[in-house]
């Protein structure tokens, strides 16, 4: 159903892969923030619900020319969602100012079409009911609902923090959407007033979060006209809201399935739409 809707505000990320050390703080913060349950054995990765995963990248060269980089992967919040288009029950959609792809757990029937459709493996399925060790449920946050087994879940850019930030603006008597100096509507939430949990805890400041459409936001300035910025599988035409930045060419090449001699800087040819 969802055609590429245009929104005044488009929340997005720029993740600087030259700053990420792969410590995993973002993954831990994500779980605590979004009430994911811990698992005693988390080594079977196909059964482990994780909204954010840090991958290790390698330049595939042998010692001593080997290089590594780490790539955190949240939901890419596509403007052209492969997932929402296949959902038979409209449990996921991108239909709201800000452009965040929603996921409604009580509506999800657990068919996992969306998981098959997502080219980024950003979605996970609750194969089991979440279990917290006795007492640990007292440390759940009231911001995000707990999910039973049988539903799909994914990163929401800590959407609850967006809701809370908007309410804070309203509580101060302000309007949430105001016209900026460029005469376009922007969100009045200050740039640091709405930040995802992963971006907030990163000690290296590797994750920059903000409104991609707001020229005053750092994330907008970082990705506009930056030849070092790229998105994952850009040629699928998913038009994602997560940009990666690296000065290392080998890292940028891993962002898509390039042929060995292909120039990554060429204007991208978007594959014909199938959805």
């Amino acid at each position, binding site marked *: 159903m969802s055609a590429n809707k245009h929104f005044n505000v488009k929340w997005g990320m720029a993740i600087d892969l030259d700053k990420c050390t792969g410590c995993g703080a973002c993954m831990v913060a994500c779980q605590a923030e979004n009430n994911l349950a811990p698992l005693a054995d988390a080594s079977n990765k196909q059964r482990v619900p994780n909204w954010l995963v840090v991958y290790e990248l390698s330049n595939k060269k042998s010692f001593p020319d080997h290089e590594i980089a780490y790539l955190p992967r949240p939901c890419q919040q596509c403007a052209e969602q492969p997932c929402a288009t296949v959902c038979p029950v*409209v449990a996921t*959609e991108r239909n*709201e100012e800000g452009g965040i792809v*929603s996921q*409604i757990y009580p509506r999800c029937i657990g068919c996992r079409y969306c998981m098959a459709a997502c080219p980024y493996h950003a979605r996970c399925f609750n194969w089991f009911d979440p279990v917290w060790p006795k007492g640990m449920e007292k440390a759940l946050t009231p911001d995000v609902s707990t999910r039973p087994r049988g539903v799909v879940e994914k990163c929401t850019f800590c*959407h609850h923090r967006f809701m809370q930030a*908007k*309410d804070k603006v*309203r*509580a101060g008597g302000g309007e949430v959407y105001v016209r900026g100096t460029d005469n376009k509507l922007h969100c009045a939430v200050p740039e640091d007033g709405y930040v995802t949990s992963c971006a907030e805890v990163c000690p290296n400041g590797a994750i920059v979060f903000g409104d991609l459409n707001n020229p005053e936001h750092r994330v907008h300035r970082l990705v506009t006209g930056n030849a070092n910025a790229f998105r994952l599988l850009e040629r699928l035409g998913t038009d994602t809201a997560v940009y990666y930045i690296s000065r290392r060419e080998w890292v940028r090449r891993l962002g898509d399935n390039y042929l060995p001699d292909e120039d990554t800087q060429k204007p991208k040819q978007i594959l014909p739409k199938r959805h």
Partner: protein
Amino acid sequence: MEEKTNCTESPACRQKCAAALLPFLGGFIAALVLGWLVIPSLLFDSETQPLLFSHATHMKKAGAVCLDCHSVRSDGSFTGIPQNDVCMSCHNGILTPEPGQGASPVEKAAYQAEKSFVENYLNPGKPVPWRKHQYQPQNVFFSHPAHFQKCYTCHLTMQGRLNLGTPENPQKLCATCHVSLEKLDRDAPVETNILTGYSSGTLKMSECERCHANPGHFYADGRGRTFANNACFTCHK
């Protein structure tokens, strides 16, 4: 097996037919009684409040408005049921005059309730274990500030169509979703659905959709004037 007869002619036969329908009617009526009167009340557990609290007394006698006790915090969250410190801003002691001999039972009960509140809860600093009439399910994000701000944007200027009161005294806006205050005036028990665990006052999604899914709202003034569209994430978390 009975013999097949044409009974329209014979009164005895008609009588017999009517008698044959009686069990059906009996079952029908019994089901109606059960379905309308008995079962709905069986579906709910009823709990009384630990104290008699009268909204009417606070609003009519003390002249309070909703926002005096239920307010939005500076971080945008809603306080809901007030904590003792809010009550303490007025109740520094027992405010109700001690009822005399001829006082009505209502007056006596009100005095007793306040006395009990001050002595058992306020002074020891113990929160009152109020039963909650309305609590959104955990997967719902309800924003009070959004509704305070947005509903008035249009409705203040179209009072003829739906009067919501004023932002200073939003009683009518509150009453759009909340249990009417007359009902809360007495010691209204909280009814909890035994299947769902929600109270009878909990709003259903269909109630939200009366406004959220109403095209008049988001198509009213160009698209998205109110930004209160019906996207799932507007209310769900």
